[in-house]
């Protein structure tokens, strides 16, 4: 028996100015199926789903959705209300939740009359509790959403869709913000809902979870659909090849013996403005020729650790030493002077000055260098020559080194920052989320550069929420949780995942 079709997309295309986001994409979704939509950043996955949900109006193409009787009907495009009415629910990567009202109000928002004098909250609550019982999506209903955990907020988002009788659920990178355990819970919840007749489209760029969890896989590259297969026929290498168009070179990592300590944090404590920045008695030694990975769920003290190493925060207790010399009253300038190179988390705001040219951004950390200035005047020619050389060496592409840095794409901004940092041959490199938001090619280039710096003799602190990246690059792994740092005894992802969640030591 052929499965019933619940959704067809036919020939959808969308351009944003000169950029083609989607080019003639067609997809089919069957009842009770999990379809994974896979592709690199910027491949057009989210744009495609935003057209389905009516946030964008496609330039060409059409969408048909099965109604409650299973008969395919054309969907009016460009109207979120129509998509909702047709039974399509979308859970965005950035949650669309109002944090000052509770989950119940977020769920019922828009489906109850605005002008009624009394709200029928009891009926709404009974219905939501029924949905929770069937799907296992547990979330507190009466607390302002601002106080819920990320996992709970995501469940509220899905409940919103189910409350609207969604028959098709679109999840945009649902696991990006979850711990491995939370992700597993989510997948088993979705399995329960699929068994109940729901159909799911699931956007991801994580191969592992796609292989483990989907029924069928569709791969997008540069806005086009380049392949579609049953998950049982797929394997990691095959899909990765489709996503990037060629075999991805696995980053080769040689075994190198570590050298002398370049960074020593001893009992460092920071009382931050928020929990994200607080550290409790953190001790960490990073040696030359070594990459130390810091794994953890966002907001557990990573930014506090990064600020200490960058010299932005003076610890309340404990000492910071670079190359054996204690740094008193650290400032960013002193840390740079001591040989620390920084790849900041927010590359657009903290990594570059967007209004200044690419060439100026490349020398911004060494303006006192006599090669760059003489008698307080910048040597324009030397700056341009330096920039041209670095742009070639680090493959920084864009509208030219004289153009404002903000015009570069995220990947090229990161290459600019790498060029600036590595040119100084730093003793210690702080790499904070260095590949977040980069596509596979750019991410591989960043990993390669970090390994080169390691071979050259630098010590590297790699803070990342992407466990695969840490497992691939780091010599030693620590887990940060509630401002405390613990060395991971294994490199097994399951074990580290549990430590990140604080479930086991």
């Amino acid at each position, binding site marked *: 028996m052929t499965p019933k079709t619940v959704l067809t997309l036919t020939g959808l295309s969308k351009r944003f100015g000169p950029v083609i986001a989607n080019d003639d994409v067609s997809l089919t979704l069957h009842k009770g199926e999990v379809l994974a939509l896979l592709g690199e950043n910027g491949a057009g996955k989210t744009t495609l789903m935003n057209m389905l949900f009516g946030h964008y109006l496609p330039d060409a193409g059409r969408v048909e959705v099965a109604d409650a009787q299973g008969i395919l009907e054309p969907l009016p495009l460009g109207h979120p209300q129509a998509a909702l009415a047709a039974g399509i629910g979308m859970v965005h990567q950035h949650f669309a939740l109002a944090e*000052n*009202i509770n989950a119940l109000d977020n769920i019922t928002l828009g489906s109850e009359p605005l002008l009624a004098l009394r709200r029928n909250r009891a009926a709404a609550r009974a219905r939501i509790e029924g949905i929770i019982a069937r799907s296992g999506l547990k979330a507190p209903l009466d607390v302002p959403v601002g106080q819920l955990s990320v996992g709970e907020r995501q469940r509220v988002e899905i409940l919103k869709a189910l409350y609207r009788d969604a028959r098709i659920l679109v999840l945009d990178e649902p696991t990006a913000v979850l711990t491995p355990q939370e992700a597993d819970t989510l997948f088993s919840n979705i399995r329960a809902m699929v068994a109940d007749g729901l159909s799911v489209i699931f956007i991801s760029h994580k191969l592992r979870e796609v292989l483990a969890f989907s029924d069928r896989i569709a791969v997008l590259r540069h806005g086009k659909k380049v392949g579609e297969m049953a998950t049982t026929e797929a394997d990691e290498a095959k899909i990765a090849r489709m996503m990037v168009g060629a075999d991805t070179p696995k980053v080769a990592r040689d075994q190198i013996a570590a050298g002398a300590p370049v960074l020593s944090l001893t009992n460092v404590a920071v009382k931050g403005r928020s929990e994200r920045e607080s550290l409790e008695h953190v001790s960490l030694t990073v040696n030359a020729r070594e990459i130390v990975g810091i794994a953890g769920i966002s907001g557990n003290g990573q930014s506090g650790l990064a600020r200490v190493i960058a010299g932005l925060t003076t610890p309340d207790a404990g000492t910071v030493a670079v190359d054996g010399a204690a740094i008193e009253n650290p400032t960013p300038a002193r840390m740079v002077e001591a040989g620390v190179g920084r790849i900041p988390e927010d590359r657009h705001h903290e990594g570059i000055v967007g209004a200044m040219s690419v060439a100026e951004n490349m020398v911004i950390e060494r303006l006192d260098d006599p090669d760059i200035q003489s008698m307080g005047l910048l040597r324009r020619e030397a700056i341009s020559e330096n920039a041209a050389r670095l742009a070639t060496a680090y493959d920084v592409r864009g509208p030219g080194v004289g153009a404002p840095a903000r015009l570069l794409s995220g990947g090229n901004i990161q290459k600019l920052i790498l060029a600036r940092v590595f040119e100084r041959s730093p003793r210690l490199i702080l790499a904070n989320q260095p590949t977040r938001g980069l596509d596979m090619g750019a991410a591989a280039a960043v990993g390669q550069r970090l390994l080169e710096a390691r071979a050259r003799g630098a010590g590297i602190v790699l803070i990342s929420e992407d466990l695969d990246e840490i497992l691939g690059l780091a010599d030693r792994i620590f887990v940060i949780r509630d401002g405390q740092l613990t060395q991971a005894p294994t490199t097994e992802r399951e074990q580290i995942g549990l430590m990140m969640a604080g479930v086991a030591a």
Partner: protein
Amino acid sequence: MTDLLNILISESFWAASLRIATPLIFGVLGALLCERAGVLNLGIEGIFVVGAMCGWMAVWLGAGLWGGVLVAACAGAIFGLLHAILTVPLGLSQHVSGLGITLFATSASYFTYRTALPNVSSPPRIEPFQALDIPVLSDLPFLGPVLFQQTALTWLALLMVLLVWYVLQRTGLGVAIKAVGDNPDSVDAQGLSVYGLRMGAIVAGSALMALGGAFLTMSAFDAFFFGMVNGRGWVCIALVIFAGWQPGKALFGAVLFGAFDALQVRLQTEMGALVPGQIFLMAPYILSIIALVIAARSVDYPRALLTPWFKGQR
């Protein structure tokens, strides 16, 4: 010291506090409604002037007192609609648009007044709202003079506090307004109109602000003067923060400011010989700043306040 105590327990002091607070109650509720939806409305000072002028002029031209109130509210709503169009679908700077509306609305009101009455030296008077005289209740000790000998507009203001509270706390509309001021995407994703909700809140809030102005010419005084609004709109902008965007606390803040003002007038007569009068004139504002500093340390701003939202950009 006993003088101060005598003032604080006198009926006339509290009656005056509530009277002075009335335009502030209207204004702070209006500003609260706009800001809960995510839009700062600095047009408030000008909308007060429009409300004062239009309400008074409508009565002077022969409309009844309640007709005047209606005209004032509509005039405020029109200027609110202008601010709404500029800041919501067009997404312009809320500060610039609001200040522009204040300048424009004030000048337009003065211009209209001067054009209608080119040769008048002393402003013409109307017959304003009279104090309600409710049998029995008005004769109660203390509460009678304080509450039940106020004008109908003061009662309307108190009613509005209840109404705004009820809408925000108990209705689907209120939930949607609070949500659109916190995260417009949450409203858009559920198929409601972000633009509609925000513009509606601004228009309704501006109508309330204009009633604050109308109280000045139709209840507190009986004529329209230049400069009579005298910064009351700006006080409301501060009071909204003091109130943490809660209608109940807004009422408290407005009455507190009214009490400071009533106190300063009385102290001036008691101690005017010793201390320059300007010190007393400053007092309510200084006390307000102190109260604001204390109260505003821990407030939660509506997260989307001042942030424009555009359809199709996520």
